[in-house]
């Protein structure tokens, strides 16, 4: 595939992520299948058109009008081909949808008509995304208004950014360079201007860029201030003696909800707990937490979640918090 593929760079976008080549291989295979069957059908039709053209007005046709073995053949062979493609594509998809454990998180908020991007260190960007090369990056996103879709063709990744919940995608960029990203879900007037650039950088360049960025404080630090401002610590005491559960070390642990459901505490669960607390109550706590929906905006929500994530991590313990 390699030679044919690289000979026509105008037929595919650059392959700049760890999953791009796998997707391209399947795409190439599908293209071959398409070419084969299109040629088969066109070729057969053209041959029959010439071979069996009507030569006399009163000519009669011949030939069979049923043939069970043939019917089975052209039912079973396409079915088998479909099974192969399904397994191949699904295997890739399942693999591509699981981020590696050690990926770094970057937060993306879509709104009409721009992308707001925030790094955990607190650096904010608009319609630009800087990432280090050869590092798994998980994009956690939401939308402030309508449905958007974050799409980086060079990485072969795409995911809707939905209002009211988090979705995520991940990639590991493999080539330093600059690539387009787009909004791929129609979102109103300036949908086609909701585009930007991904800058894939060497780790040292990335570190320098982060250091030079216009950050004020890390997302977790900003979240801590919000935690204080909203007096969350009144109930969520760190030693667990409060009226609400302790949040230290909570992130990433499975918790049993009042409904009997067991869920791992992730960004989505925390979001739900802050917006609609009673929908994810823990069994041993009273339903007294008010909803903060509408009081906290999407960015603040992400900061609070970043803070809660950081509670119980080594870094925060040693800094005395």
């Amino acid at each position: 595939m390699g030679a044919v593929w690289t000979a026509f760079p105008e037929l595919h976008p650059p392959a700049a992520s760890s999953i791009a080549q796998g997707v391209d291989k399947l795409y190439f295979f599908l293209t071959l299948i398409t070419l084969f069957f299109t040629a088969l059908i066109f070729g057969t039709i053209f041959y029959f058109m010439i071979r069996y053209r009507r030569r006399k007005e009163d000519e009669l046709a011949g030939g069979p009008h049923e043939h069970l073995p043939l019917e089975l053949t052209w039912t079973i062979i396409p079915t088998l081909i479909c099974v192969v493609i399904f397994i191949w594509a699904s295997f890739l998809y399942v693999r591509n949808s699981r981020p590696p454990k050690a990926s770094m998180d970057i937060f993306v908020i879509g709104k009409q008509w721009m992308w707001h991007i925030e790094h955990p260190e607190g650096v904010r960007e608009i319609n630009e995304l800087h990432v280090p090369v050869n590092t798994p990056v998980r994009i956690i996103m939401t939308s402030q208004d309508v449905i958007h879709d974050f799409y980086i063709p060079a990485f072969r990744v795409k995911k809707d950014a939905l209002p009211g919940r988090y979705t995520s995608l991940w990639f590991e960029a493999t080539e330093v360079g600059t690539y387009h990203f787009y909004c791929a879900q129609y979102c109103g007037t300036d949908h086609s201007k909701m585009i930007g650039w991904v800058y894939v950088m060497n780790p040292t360049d990335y570190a320098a860029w982060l250091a030079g960025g216009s950050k004020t404080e890390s997302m977790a630090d900003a979240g801590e201030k919000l935690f204080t401002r909203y007096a969350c610590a009144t109930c969520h005491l760190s030693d667990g003696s409060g009226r609400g559960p302790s949040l230290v070390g909570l992130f990433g642990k499975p918790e049993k909800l009042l409904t009997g459901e067991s869920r791992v505490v992730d960004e989505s669960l925390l979001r739900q707990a802050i917006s609609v607390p009673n929908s994810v109550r823990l069994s041993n706590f009273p339903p007294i937490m008010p909803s903060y929906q509408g009081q906290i905006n999407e960015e603040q929500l992400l900061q609070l979640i970043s803070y809660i994530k950081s509670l119980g991590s080594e870094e925060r313990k040693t800094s005395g918090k």
Partner: protein
Amino acid sequence: MSSTATVDNLEIPAESRLNYLNASYGIKSWLLTTDHKRIALLYLVSITFMFLVGGVAATLMRLHLIEPQGALVDPETYNRLFSIHGIVMVFFFLVPSIPATLGNFLVPMMIGARDVAFPKLNLMSWYIYITGAAFTLYAAVTGGVDTGWTFYTPFSSNYSHSAVIPVALGVFITGFSSILTGLNFIVTIHKMRAPGMTWFRLPLFIWAMYATSIIFILGTPVIAITLFLLGLERLLHIGIFDPAVGGDPLLFQHLFWFYSHPAVYIMILPGMGVISELITAFSRKRIFGYSFVAFSSMAIAVISFLVWGHHMFVTGQSVYAGLVFSVLSFLVAIPSAVKVFNWTATLYKGSISYQAPMLYALGFIGLFTMGGLTGLFLASLAVDVHLNGTYFVVAHFHYIMVGGAVMAYMGGLHFWWPKITGRLYPDAWARFSALVIFVGFNLTFFPQFVMGYLGMPRRYAVYPPEFQVLNVMSSAGASVLAVGYVIPLVYFIWSMRYGPPAGPNPWGAKGLEWETPSPPPTENFEEIPIVTEEAYNYPQLPEVARG
């Protein structure tokens, strides 16, 4: 072959004979008709008008996209253009196209009936269609709608400042015309077949209409409910689709595609039925694998209700749901492939002639094959993640909807035009326009496959300059395509006055509709025919006689 003698006797000039066109005159005799053939013509005029509306919108879009920064209109207008193009073409042209025109005309004739089961409901369905179309067109000219034909929430419910409600109401209303047509066809096919017309003697067009009708009556209520909810949400903010009050914007997509995916088969199944008629008539052969072609229509109708989630692979839908919808989407491809192979095999040892309808039919097979195969890309989860929402999707469904459904509709119109009007059109012009359409179509939509894999998202009023070459190719193709559609309009209208009389059976085709004069009398048949043979029973050489 006993019918030949009677057919010859009927070869008298159309003018001197009473038929459904000259049985009565005046505008009232048309607007109050319950004759399925006249209703078919009312529909034909209406949907042709809607096709022109949708076509003009498409032409303006393609002109605009010649320049990366947009050559013609501002983004607001562009968004309204693609929205009205999609809404008009899907709900007001493609869905009713073959069923409401050719279906209305032919279902009773092909099964040997004098009319459909409920002629008044049939007329009512046309009035409902016109009412819906009026709402939509009114909204389109007084501000327009910018939601796309998919009406995704919460954009359509809470954010769009355009005429969402009147347009959605128009689509809602028109849905009932589909339901009435479907109901009429199902009852007609069950109860009104001529003596001897058993299920397995039915022309395959009837099987396709039957399968389509089932989707009409099962699927259309769902889109009605969905649009009703959208209206409630927009007017009263009840919150079904609004996450701020606990609603779910994706629920809309599930409901929408539960109808709109089967609707794709509403658009293509009738086309498949037409192709089975054309291929047999122009190769003078029985269809290859009758029961496989018939049952594949039914299989498509059933499976089509189970694949809607493949429109939502990148919405955050669970991986397991994705796997299930993917495998079902592959499954629905199989019956379509079976049909293509059977049509191709029908040509084998046929006596093939190449009048215009046959050119359209062969064009259909080729373009539908490409449309179907590119569907496999989109059913493949990992590849769909990249292609979803790009021009690849646009190209794929236009290969099915225009390369497939519209080619079949044009082919069918050319095939039955002499029956409908009693006149022949100039075949050379018709063949020329078929060729122009085929070339123009491929030039328009093939570059869009490449554009899509390169990553160009759909519904973009402006785009990065690296996509310009492909966009210009596509726009050039669109102008060729537009010319291809105007030529038939001219010679069809010309033929109504100046075309030579067609005679009852100009193609030498089998089927009950060809055993009655052209144009047919109001009651279709002087005497209800008695069917003694299977469909497409063309006289055939014994197996050994031909080498």
